[in-house]
């Protein structure tokens, strides 16, 4: 069985032909669309060496739809001429004819007709000659008959200007017999069907080879957000390292837990309106652990626990001010305070990953909210070397192995160190996190034993990735933007995890 009736016909003609045939000619002979013949050529080509097909492009003149009409019915001017009876025709009436406007001016310039403006009932049109030759129709009929070459260049271009003729490029195939030519080509199967299996006919069927260059159909599925995929990976790393997750489901925090408990003085710039979102409602925290508050107050204003303190007037009103937490360290402070109330002390490893807020105006490099990752270890006798060791393990799990540490200042850690990693792409050291040992002025008022050290580190979930990920998802400045679905669908599994 041949591959469709056209292909079959093509093969028969080719067998009978002398050397080869042209696809356009064949289409004309068979009286079918050229495209159908091209389709047959292509399907035969796909079979291998049955035929050889050479692409040829030829230019030829074709009539436009209007041109065809004229070839059939005569030019507009001829039609106007014919419609004028010997006694003449009112010009207004003539203009209403379908060919009126164009035909009138052409017939006038051909001097076939004339206008008598002195007639009683308006201008009247009369024939000037008795008969005329419709040159335009004749020429178009020549082109229609495939004899465009009989026309001069000038004549053709005039007809083209009147949009009656168009030059078209025709792509045709010169088809000749291939090395494996045969008229009895059978169609290749594209799919294996249950019938073929049950009848066993699959054994004798040829199968069409797969096209590996084409794209597959992507599975129809839901997706997780790329940044939150990374969040899951970080959670996983902490869990692998034996860290317990802290509750952080309180975006609203008092200044006390966000700052004072961390030994961050009340005049600290971070407590400025410019940097932190404060609340109008509820403006103040309703309850604070007053015993502990007193110890914090004393440490800030007078010192104690071996500290000089900051020596300023500490105000409870300031501590009560509610805000959107600026870091998850406030949640760590609450967790450590709870830990301190449990006697005897048991060592812990804590982590959290959650949103924090800064009073920023959104732009390409500033976000008003982002995710902070925080790890905390509390145990007897922890050292700076321990902190660095834990950080090394943590970052190794992220695929970051080249680390170095820079002295830094944090209000609530001492010693403090910024963590840098070597960025292969940027060819320089970039900061990847901040870390330190919580100050005794923070821990001892909570009631933790004196020989317990707490090491901690933090980084931003957005930083090691790409701020773009988050931006794609968010209404940016001047209105919502971005394409989450695209970004989400195209995101790979997080690297290094």
């Amino acid at each position, binding site marked *: 069985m041949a591959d469709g009736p056209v292909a079959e016909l093509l093969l028969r003609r080719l067998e009978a032909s002398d050397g080869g045939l042209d696809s356009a000619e064949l289409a004309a002979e068979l009286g079918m669309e050229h495209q159908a013949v091209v389709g047959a050529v292509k399907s035969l080509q796909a079979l291998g060496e049955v035929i050889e097909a050479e692409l040829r492009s030829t230019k030829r003149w074709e009539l436009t739809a209007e041109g065809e009409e004229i070839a059939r019915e005569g030019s507009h001017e001829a039609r106007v001429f014919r419609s004028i009876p010997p006694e003449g025709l009112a010009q207004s009436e003539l203009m209403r004819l379908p060919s009126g406007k164009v035909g009138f001016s052409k017939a006038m310039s051909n001097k076939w007709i004339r206008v008598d403006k002195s007639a009683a009932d308006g201008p009247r049109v009369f024939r000037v000659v008795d008969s005329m030759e419709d040159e335009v129709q004749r020429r178009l009929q020549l082109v229609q008959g495939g004899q465009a070459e009989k026309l001069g260049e000038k004549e053709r271009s005039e007809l083209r200007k009147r949009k009656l003729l168009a030059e078209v490029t025709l792509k045709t195939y010169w088809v000749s017999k291939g090395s494996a030519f045969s008229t009895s080509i059978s169609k290749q199967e594209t799919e294996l069907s249950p019938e073929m299996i049950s009848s066993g006919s699959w054994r004798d069927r040829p199968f069409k080879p797969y096209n590996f260059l084409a794209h597959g159909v992507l599975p129809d599925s839901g997706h997780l957000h790329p940044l939150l995929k990374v969040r899951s990976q970080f959670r996983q790393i902490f869990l692998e390292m034996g860290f317990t997750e802290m509750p952080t489901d309180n975006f609203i925090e008092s200044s006390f837990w966000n700052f004072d408990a961390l030994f961050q003085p009340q005049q600290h710039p971070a407590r400025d309106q410019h940097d932190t979102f404060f609340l109008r409602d*509820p403006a103040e925290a309703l309850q604070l652990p007053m015993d502990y508050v007193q110890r914090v107050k004393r440490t800030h204003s007078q010192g104690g626990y071996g500290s000089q303190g900051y020596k300023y007037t500490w105000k409870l009103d300031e501590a009560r001010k509610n805000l959107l937490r600026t870091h998850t360290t406030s949640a760590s402070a609450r967790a450590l305070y709870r830990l301190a109330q449990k006697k005897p002390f048991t060592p812990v490893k804590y982590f959290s990953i959650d949103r924090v807020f800064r009073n920023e105006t959104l732009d390409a490099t500033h976000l008003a*909210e982002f995710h902070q990752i925080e790890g905390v270890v509390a145990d007897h006798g922890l*050292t700076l070397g321990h902190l660095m060791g834990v950080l090394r393990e943590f970052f190794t799990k992220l695929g970051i192995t080249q680390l170095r540490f820079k002295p830094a200042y944090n209000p609530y850690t001492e010693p403090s160190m910024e963590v840098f990693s070597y960025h292969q792409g940027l060819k320089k050291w970039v900061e990847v996190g901040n870390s330190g040992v919580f100050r005794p002025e923070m821990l001892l008022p909570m009631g933790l034993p004196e020989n317990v050290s707490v090491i901690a580190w933090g980084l931003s979930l957005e930083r090691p990735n790409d701020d773009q990920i988050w931006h794609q998802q968010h209404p940016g400045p001047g209105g919502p933007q971005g*394409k989450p679905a695209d970004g989400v669908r195209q995101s790979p599994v997080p690297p290094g995890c």
Partner: protein
Amino acid sequence: MPTVSVKRDLLFQALGRTYTDEEFDELCFEFGLELDEITSEKEIISKEQGNVKAAGASDVVLYKIDVPANRYDLLCLEGLVRGLQVFKERIKAPVYKRVMPDGKIQKLIITEETAKIRPFAVAAVLRNIKFTKDRYDSFIELQEKLHQNICRKRALVAIGTHDLDTLSGPFTYTAKRPSDIKFKPLNKTKEYTACELMNIYKTDNHLKHYLHIIENKPLYPVIYDSNGVVLSMPPIINGDHSRITVNTRNIFIECTGTDFTKAKIVLDIIVTMFSEYCENQFTVEAAEVVFPNGKSYTFPELAYRKEMVRADLINKKVGIRETPENLAKLLTRMYLKSEVIGDGNQIEIEIPPTRADIIHACDIVEDAAIAYGYNNIQMTLPKTYTIANQFPLNKLTELLRYDMAAAGFTEVLTFALCSQEDIADKLGLDISATKAVHISNPKTAEFQVARTTLLPGLLKTIAANRKMPLPLKLFEISDIVIKDSNTDVGAKNYRHLCAVYYNKNPGFEIIHGLLDRIMQLLDVPPGEDKGGYVIKASEGKTDEPNPELVTVSGGGYTLFFMKLVILIWDFRKKGR
């Protein structure tokens, strides 16, 4: 973190050697500084105002160095050089001395009117100082850095420096009605009253930021000399009469403020940094300040404090094993002169007046670690044995996220903050019914409230993605915030799940199916009789901030449908 900009060549000259940019960057890193940028005045101007303006500017190379926020002693070239030279053991830390004048001591008398506005003042004299253009610029720049940092934009402390030879003491620090204060301020050609000045400075890009500190007070602080010459009207402006120049030889420094401790620190920093250029290097002439209660104090304090730290404590905190002698040497390199005393394990550390940041033994431990070199410390793993636990709410969230995606829904991540409109007007609700928490100081209307529902974020995501092929199936599991007087802060997070099906047809059965799937995952059967969930038409209850048409309850969950396409789900009972 403050950034100090110094001329590179001047810096190298003072350090007595040159460095490549990389070498200097490395030195900074080791010492806890950061070489932030290498630039020039020309480059800065051209970047900010274009090449034309930059044409005549200097192209002397500038190093911009980030300094830790608590190291006020490193905020100028003089301090940076001294710190680095001591660190590299090229010089010994100088000892700063307060000396009594040959003649009469300069006196500053504080009157009680200042009590309500700016009660503290301290003062000192730098005698026989020798400025050059660079030194003078550094002196002015240090004051500016101190104003911006420890002085909290002059709110806590304001510094005034004056040519002492143009004045005659004793000085009076008082407070007067603005209309009664009249003087010629710095850089002006005639006298103005304080009221006039406050108006003029409203358009001054530099000074307008400080006006609020005294603007609405009935009395403004002002300092006079014995002839009634105005030295300054802190914290706004100095008088023109006593302005200092490159040629000034004797400088009277006054610091007024609301924080006594910080005023003393600021004065100490200025005089320790610039007494280097006095005829008697590192000596500062004392001044007497008489408080309204009649008590008199002598400044600058220039107090040296002794701290005792055991060597094994430092070793234990850092994780190193250094001899006490070595530790004392390391600390000395950090500008903390130290020696081993007593049983050979005690280290006595002298905290100089420049190191106000040292307030606890842990600060000393850090300095020892820095001098040892953070990157030389042996990394070890703590032996802390713990069993990890997930926070149950997050565990449930994680499990559900995966199943939501498996059910064909795509996760979105949207802001927790939004406008009032987003959670009220646009959802046909009155803002008072939302129980939302309100932000008092948002910079834009996008951040007026914390969201009370996840819905606006999902709808905005759809709006931003109308070009995507339909249907859009989106979900988010995250927290919303509601006022709640039962919590300590008066507000509480609730974990919500919200899903949206967006298509040309409503597709209620799709979101309904998702609900059934979620309930299946949570092991809540359908049907009230089985203790499961039921779906009921709702009147759009006002106790919930959502315009839902249908509520679903059962198994400890509450769910809401809206317009048949949205599912909002509150985990408030389970998982907490």
